[in-house]
């Protein structure tokens, strides 16, 4: 009985800790997102000016730009209407084309842009593991006649000695 009660208490504590953690994480994630100026800056930095200057919308710096002023006004209007981030981006894409977004989306083929580096990392990591395995399994290089390879505890002893004598 005592063991069951203790287990139940532990499970309860774990559940509460998990809930607290999730709540904190959600609060942290939501911090600052409701501020219109922050949203304007965030969304504006996820878009490009389409005048050909190849700059982020909010960084386009030339006076008389035929595009950026209008685009900024549209963004402000959309945020004032209370449009969600996704809706704002979608309406810009519909009007100006997909190049208006400063980075590929996470939908359709665009996902490949993000998947490939991760796949390359996993592939590279796997390759390293294979290389390390093959190296570890390789027989020790042959020694000249009469010499016996030093291994195991004896090798460790020599290593310790060398470390002590050459320790910087």
């Amino acid at each position, binding site marked *: 009985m005592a063991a069951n009660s203790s287990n139940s208490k532990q499970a309860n504590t774990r559940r509460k800790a998990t809930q607290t953690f999730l709540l904190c994480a959600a609060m*942290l994630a939501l*911090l*600052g997102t409701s501020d219109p100026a922050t949203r304007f800056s965030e969304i504006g*930095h*996820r878009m*490009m000016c389409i005048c050909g*200057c*190849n*700059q*982020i919308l909010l*960084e*386009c*710096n*030339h*006076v*008389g730009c035929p595009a950026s002023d209008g685009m900024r006004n549209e963004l402000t209007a959309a945020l004032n209407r209370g449009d969600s981030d996704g809706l704002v981006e979608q309406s810009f894409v519909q009007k100006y*084309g*997909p*190049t*208006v*977004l*400063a*980075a*590929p*989306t996470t939908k*359709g*083929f*665009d996902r*490949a*842009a*993000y998947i*490939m*580096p991760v796949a*390359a*990392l996993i592939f*590279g*990591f796997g390759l*390293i593991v294979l*290389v*390390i395995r093959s*190296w*570890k399994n*390789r027989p*020790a*290089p042959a020694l000249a006649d009469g010499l016996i390879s*030093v291994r195991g505890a004896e*090798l460790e002893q*020599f*290593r310790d*000695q*060398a*470390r002590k*004598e*050459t*320790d*910087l």
Partner: protein
Amino acid sequence: MAEIGSFALLLALALSVYSFLAGLIALVFQANASQAQSPQLALKPAGQATSRSATSNPTLSASYDSSLAAMLRQGSERIGETARRAGIATFGAVLLASIILVICAFHDDFSIAYIFHHSNRDLPGPYKFAVLWSGQEGSLLFWSLLLAAYGFVLRLRYKTDPRLFAYASVILAGVQIFFLLLLNFAAHPFAIMQGTIPADGNGLNPLLQYPEMVIHPPMLYLGYVGFTVPFAFALGALIMKYPGEKWIQITRRWTMVTWAFLTCGVFLGAHWAYSVLGWGGYWGWDPVENASLMPWLAGTAFLHSVMMQEKRGMLKMWNMWLVFATFWLAILGTFLTRSGIISSVHAFAQSSIGDWFAWFLAITLITFLIFFFKNKSHLRSEHKLESLVSRESSFLFNNLLFVLLTFTVLWGTWFPKISELVQGNKVTVGAPFYNRVAVPVALLLLILTAVGPLLAWRKTSIESLKRNFMWPTIGAIAVAIFLMVTPQGWGSAFGLKPWRDISYFYSLMAIALSVLVTLTVASEFYRGGRVIAKHTGQGMFASMVQLTHRNTRRYGGYIVHFGVVVVIIGFAGAAFNQDKEQEMGYGDKMTLGPYTLICRSYTDDDGPNYASEWALLDVYKGGKQIGTMTPVRRFYKASQQTSTMPDIRSTLNEDLYLVFEGINPDNGHPILKAHLNALVMWIWMGVWIMLGGTILALVPNAPVPARVPAPARLERAHPAPVATGD
């Protein structure tokens, strides 16, 4: 003049072709001579003689073959020497062509189309010199000149290892032929204008009329072109199955020099973008910028992994691939810049020569693949990995991350084109993509930069790692906490709340890891210095200087790491940037961060090369005037283009960056944009430190004082040799 220039280019092509063919013939004959000599005299078993006379009289046959081999060798040596001299003369011919083009620019010879398109009479002298690399034909000529100059040095130093240098010389001549073919038949810098000679030229692109543009392209090109030399050595060593690792030592030094030039070129480009383009940033992830970053990343990976080959005879195949990839990516960069296949804001010269580059890239790849698969058995590792916690495995992961970064940049650069091919529409791959993908990888690399130097070759005990790592880790965590709890008013990097924004989190991580790297580097200097101080009785500083001088490569490398850390801190400052745009009439005020700007005046000016509009602003901080700033906008008459000249006031904490954006047509008031860019100066300081470390690493080591071995200790045990180096 144009005729002499054209003739010089043709002569250079002829000399290069001769150098390539004669060098090749000499190498083939040399190989045959050694084959003819060695088996007959030493190895050939009885009964396998090839000639009739050999069957009847083996002694006579051996003597005949020996003299034939000697004749072949002598003949091939003579031919090889003429090839070497032709290679040297190529430099003279290309130099002559380059000098003539520059003279034509200074003489305003607009009968030459290139000069007409890239210069004008009122262009200041230094920019007339820079005309040489301001357009496509000139920059190809400049590339060819630098390649010839590298070849010139290489061919003069051939005695270091005549056979390897002969192979490298032939490969360099092959690359040189490609560029000279381009210059003679596809992008001729001395092409003559048709019809009437114009009175004045079109002028130089305004963005290029900035003092750094006189240095930035040469540095970048020295880097790009320079990677041809390590590639030539590597391919030469692969073809000849070079015995031993001497070639890798020769290659490493060339790579370090080239890497330093490319580092300088990349960061000068960043500084130019910051100082001229007027958008307040230094890196826009533009394809042309990416083109310079890719060979730099691959070259950096090679400079690390090459140590595995030198110290342990491992990663030979991998290094071969890295050298090739670095060279290939450098050519690919030129292809991207010149072909116009990927749109870029500063691909200053686009044309149809992209096809030539595509073919050249294909030919070099095929050539490399043929020799790699033919001779890869020669590239087997000599040692095995003994432990995961070792310098070897840290280099493996270091290389993985560098190559991953290179791949990410390459993938991001090409993705718009790939997307167009696959789904029929282009997408933009800008800073948000790279921030999301590349920044975490760069942070992982920073961790390895901290851990790697603390690991010993072969195996490191966990206790030793804990001992060496504890204080730097505590220091890094303490700094991170300090930055989080301090008030924001203290400066840009203070009061960092990582939960507010992902960029703050990255910045905090970058700064904390930078502190970790700095402390590990400092502890390496301290521990080494302490040992020397104990043995010599010198002071700590003198001991550390001596330590550095004894192993310049290792400690120079640490200084480079420290420079990288300083640069990273500068990058981390981007999270705290602010900006504001405002129309500024007389006496109008603008406040940004701790600064207040008051417009004192605005006016315009007219010069022979350009007309300018500028504003005069007093800058106040804490109620006290600290200076006056004058952002300018210029209108270049010859090219009919405008360009901004931001005024930047730099401090360690932040840059106040003012841009004259234009004039309100309704009231004539200037419109100014002010940026407050945090920690930017750290980037430029870090680059200087990196270059200082590289130069130090190239300095030969001081001889270590001789020691008398203690016989008693030697008798007691014969410890296994422990690698101490880099």
